């Protein structure tokens, strides 16, 4: 059964140095508050998985939490580069990281395979691409019925999945909607999970077929309003596109990145304080 707890407690008890963690969210419902708590608690040697590593992964990489990154698209959507991600791969700063690179189709299938308890995923993918030459986890398999050669990638089985959702009830059942990405698959594929939510309600009011994670597949549930900002929570707040543009300038330079992280993440005790600082800067 899910435990309703503080985010600091959930991260302290569920995420350990050296773990493999998937903090998923496809542009929407990105678990930013949870990522900040991982940084505050100075977790190290993490293997981090994400189809679309964005700002919070840029921060984890730049703050030295990451040993290895498994991903399929690493950019600031509509803006350009993730500068800390680039600096780590191009220049080994703050330390060299390993990376394993896929396409979206393969990673989405690999999460579904993990949730399905299968050892690998099969897809018609990577045809003619150079990616299989550099990623030995992209292999081929012959269809036993037609003889077609298809791509195979290992299932994703994280130690911990971390997601953000709109609502949980008091028993810890979780409801999310809108662009739901691979979050359901990530939680079902993982050994443990942390779910931050916008609010905790008496009754989820989930219609049949809604994306619901029952309490008994969820580890920790933490109420963190606005915990996905600057990404968004459908029905609660919009994506802060202006901040995504501002991040380009903040993260471009090692020193300005470090100063920003110290001021806004390290020196704040939780996400509420972080948000208050960000708002104060935006008004200044």
């Amino acid at each position, binding site marked *: 059964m899910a435990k309703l707890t503080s985010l600091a407690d959930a991260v302290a008890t569920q995420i350990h140095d050296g773990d493999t963690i998937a903090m998923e969210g496809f542009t929407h419902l990105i678990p930013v508050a949870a990522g900040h708590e991982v940084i505050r608690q100075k977790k190290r040697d993490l293997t981090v998985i994400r189809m679309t590593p964005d700002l919070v992964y840029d921060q984890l990489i730049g703050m030295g939490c990451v040993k290895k990154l498994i*991903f399929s698209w690493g950019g600031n959507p509509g803006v350009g580069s993730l500068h800390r991600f680039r600096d780590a791969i191009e220049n080994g700063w703050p330390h060299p990281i390993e990376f394993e690179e*896929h396409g*979206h189709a393969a990673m*989405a299938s690999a999460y579904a395979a993990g949730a399905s308890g299968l050892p690998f995923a099969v897809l018609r993918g*990577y045809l003619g691409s150079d990616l299989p030459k550099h990623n030995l986890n992209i292999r081929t398999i012959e269809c036993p019925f037609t003889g077609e050669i298809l791509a195979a990638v290992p299932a994703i089985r994280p130690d911990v999945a971390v997601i953000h959702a709109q609502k949980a009830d008091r028993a810890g059942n979780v409801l999310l909607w809108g*662009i739901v*990405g691979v979050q359901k698959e990530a939680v079902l594929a993982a050994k443990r999970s942390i779910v931050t939510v916008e609010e905790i309600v008496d009754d989820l009011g989930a219609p049949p077929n809604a994306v619901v994670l029952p309490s008994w597949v969820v580890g920790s549930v933490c109420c963190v309003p606005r915990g996905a900002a600057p990404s968004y929570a459908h029905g609660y707040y919009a*994506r802060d596109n202006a901040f995504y543009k501002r991040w380009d300038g903040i993260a471009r330079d090692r020193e300005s990145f470090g100063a920003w992280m110290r001021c806004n993440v390290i020196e704040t005790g939780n996400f509420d304080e972080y948000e208050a600082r960000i708002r104060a800067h935006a008004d200044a």
Partner: protein
Amino acid sequence: MPDYTSDEIMTVVAARQLANGCVCFVGIGLPSAAANLARLTHAPDIVLIYESGTIGSRPEVLPLSIGDGELAETALTVVSVPEMFRYWLQGGRIDVGFLAAAQLDRFGNINTTMVGDDYAHPKVRLPGAGGASEIATSAGEVFVMLRQSARAFVAKLDFTTSIGYAEGGDSRARFGIPGKGPTRVITDLGILTPDPRSRELTLTGIHPGVTVDQVRAATGWALRVADTLEITKPPTAAELSSLRDLHARTKRAHGEVAA
């Protein structure tokens, strides 16, 4: 001087390529602007699909990312990302995959992964494949849109992220790829289409006021030019005002001052 910019004619000409009612898997950036312009002008029944899972999106403003709330709110439905890639793309439901590129070669192969000669230690690390490596193979056909320059139109890609016509001729077929491949490349200078036999991209259309020498200079290989070169019809007043209104609405929505 024309009363439109080179980006505007590129977007307008790219939009015109999309038939009303077609099902288009939209890449972010330039393709998204063109696909939405098509929807707002001659193709009101076009079905726009974004890889975040939105099917039939009709955004009022252009999304900054492929998963802005605007795309979900205006969609017919939203599916999970595994479903998007497995049922809808791999399942063969997409007519046109509309992609951007960082580098493109003469056979329409695309690089969005890295610049340099060592994959592990790139000179410039780009975002990577995203959905493109499978959009390029599973979509019925592919349109590519990018600004033309010798830096982007290269003789040899540093990395093949998404396959076009491989080494040309029938070499794409060798891979057992279901889709037709890149049937047109739209740039700020003109349109390139593959030669029916060699599959080499050939300049078949040119925008008004652009010279062939200009296009050659912006191409990193010895560009083939069609015997009869079609000159693009300039943007109409209606196309231009639709596009400019769309960009102005988008800037306001993204917290910038409208131009």
